[in-house]
């Protein structure tokens, strides 16, 4: 096994190199830039054969790989925050055209106030675009998810967003086990789509679709989405056979506990430590990590949380006028469950504010203090003076 200390961003770049990607487009934005920077270096020193396209905006970055993928080439780009927001129109296009693009997305807050630190609201704002969304807690998971993300995307003809936290993953160096090229070639067959732009066989793609056809096109996207969870499991089985690692669309620890935290991204890692400490002190506490946000694994979550005493969803994101976005989805997946647990929602860590084990201890006390939530979403660590 080839294990090395590597930055989270570079773990993604390394995965892209191993996946025999044909076209990469890139436009720099902090904290994503290290991903495409390393890929550009690989392309220029010849260790990667992809065509690297410098573009003038993120909108063009996505347009370029929509073109490449339509022509039957495996394609990748990466972005963050305002860059992702600028891509929004073409995210719909990539999914509607059923293109198996993989994109690295580094969660960063949207301005104003101008802020480069982690916050999931950028990617969660894209939840209705038809992209599969997979959240990762460290560089190893990001590398692995890019590799099986391409496999998954190409099996269901939907694009995949591989999402990491700004700095806490993107700029953090940890040990990452890097697969060999032969192993990846074995796992990820060459990309050969049934329908593509082909000079030998000219055809028009993505033409006008009248009301007579449009609804079926949308329904077929949903049908593909409905296959994702099962195919994801099969792909992970194969991944596990080769590399011995598996993540699941959700992962549970001690799910029958009195209090079960629901987390995503790097808050999950810190939560693992917090519940270990609490369990050592005799407390009854568990955790559910949500890795797959689209499609939302509602059945899996229902099943995981049905025996929990109380559920506490931790959201590093917010939908104004509603609440934490993961919490809304968790609540909707539990609403038809008989004797469903109550769901508390905590908003923490927006714009890179630190989430520590103490943050979890504070939330744990708040959940224990009340039988039912006193408010829709409780914001943690707010300085009331600043609100005046």
């Amino acid at each position: 096994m080839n294990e090395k200390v590597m930055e989270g961003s570079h773990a993604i770049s390394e995965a892209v190199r191993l996946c025999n990607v044909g076209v990469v487009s890139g436009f720099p934005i902090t904290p994503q830039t290290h991903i495409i920077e390393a890929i550009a270096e690989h392309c220029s020193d010849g260790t990667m054969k992809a065509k690297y396209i410098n573009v003038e905006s993120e909108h063009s970055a996505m347009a370029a790989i929509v073109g490449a993928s339509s022509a039957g080439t495996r394609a990748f780009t990466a972005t963050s925050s305002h860059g992702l927001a600028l891509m929004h129109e073409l995210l719909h296009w990539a999914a509607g055209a059923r293109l198996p693009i993989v994109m690295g997305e580094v969660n960063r807050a949207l301005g104003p106030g101008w802020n480069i630190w982690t916050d999931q609201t950028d990617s969660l704002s894209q939840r209705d675009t038809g992209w599969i969304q997979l959240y990762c807690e460290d560089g190893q998971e990001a590398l692995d998810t890019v590799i099986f993300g391409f496999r998954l995307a190409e099996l269901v003809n939907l694009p995949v967003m591989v999402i990491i936290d700004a700095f806490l993953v993107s700029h953090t160096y940890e040990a990452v086990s890097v697969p060999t090229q032969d192993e990846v070639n074995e796992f990820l067959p060459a990309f050969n789509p049934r329908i593509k732009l082909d000079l030998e066989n000219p055809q028009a793609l993505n033409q006008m679709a009248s009301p007579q056809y449009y609804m079926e096109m949308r329904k077929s996207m949903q049908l593909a989405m409905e296959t994702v969870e099962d195919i994801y499991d099969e792909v992970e089985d194969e991944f596990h056979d080769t590399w011995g690692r598996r993540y699941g669309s959700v992962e549970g620890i001690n799910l029958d506990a009195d209090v079960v935290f629901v987390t995503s991204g790097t808050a999950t890692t810190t939560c693992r430590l917090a519940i270990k400490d609490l369990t050592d002190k005799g407390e009854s506490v568990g955790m559910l990590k949500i890795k797959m946000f689209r499609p939302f694994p509602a059945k899996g979550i229902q099943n995981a949380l049905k025996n929990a005493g109380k559920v506490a969803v931790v959201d590093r994101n917010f939908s104004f006028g509603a609440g934490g976005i993961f919490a809304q989805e968790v609540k909707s997946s539990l609403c038809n469950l008989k004797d469903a647990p109550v769901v508390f929602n905590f908003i923490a860590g927006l714009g890179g504010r630190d989430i520590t084990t103490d943050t979890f201890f504070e939330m744990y006390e708040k959940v224990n203090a009340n039988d039912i939530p006193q408010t829709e979403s409780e914001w943690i660590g707010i300085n009331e003076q600043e609100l005046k």
Partner: protein
Amino acid sequence: MEEIRFHGRGGQGTVLASISLAKAFFDSGYHVQTFPVFGVERRGAPVEAYLRIDSSEKILTKSNVYTPDHIVVMDSKLLGSIDVTKGLKKGGWILINAKDMPKDLSKFKGYKIALIDASNIALSNGLGTKTSPIINTAMLGAFAKMMNIPNIEFIEKAILDEVPVKRKENVQAARDAFAKVMFH
């Protein structure tokens, strides 16, 4: 788990020092995690980097370091402008790049102090200029001597892996600092 906080200035190679040290600890069999504190860096502005090491367990925390076990101060002038010992655990090491011991040691009571003239070592090995010596590799050699870990061979290997230019000179700077570090 032990936590180490680096204080330096933008352009001094503080982040690279922390990454190289992480690699040296990893080669010694440790679990490691390192990341810079990101703000609006510019050359000369104070910067910080964190390093976590654990000889037995995977590091399960993804948050900033508040109570470091040891600190590394890349520029002695920082001692006058920022509170470098903030949160530092009693009995911890403070490694300082300076010519002489600070005159007033009262604020470092309860800590162990190591001193290295890394700027001089860097210059004598042709690293950087008088106004801007490249001191990070010398600091790594001093760190290895101060802590008795990691083995200097792993420091040398990490420097060879990480440093793009003047590799031999950087390795020599680490060796010189390893030999010359002074303890209070």
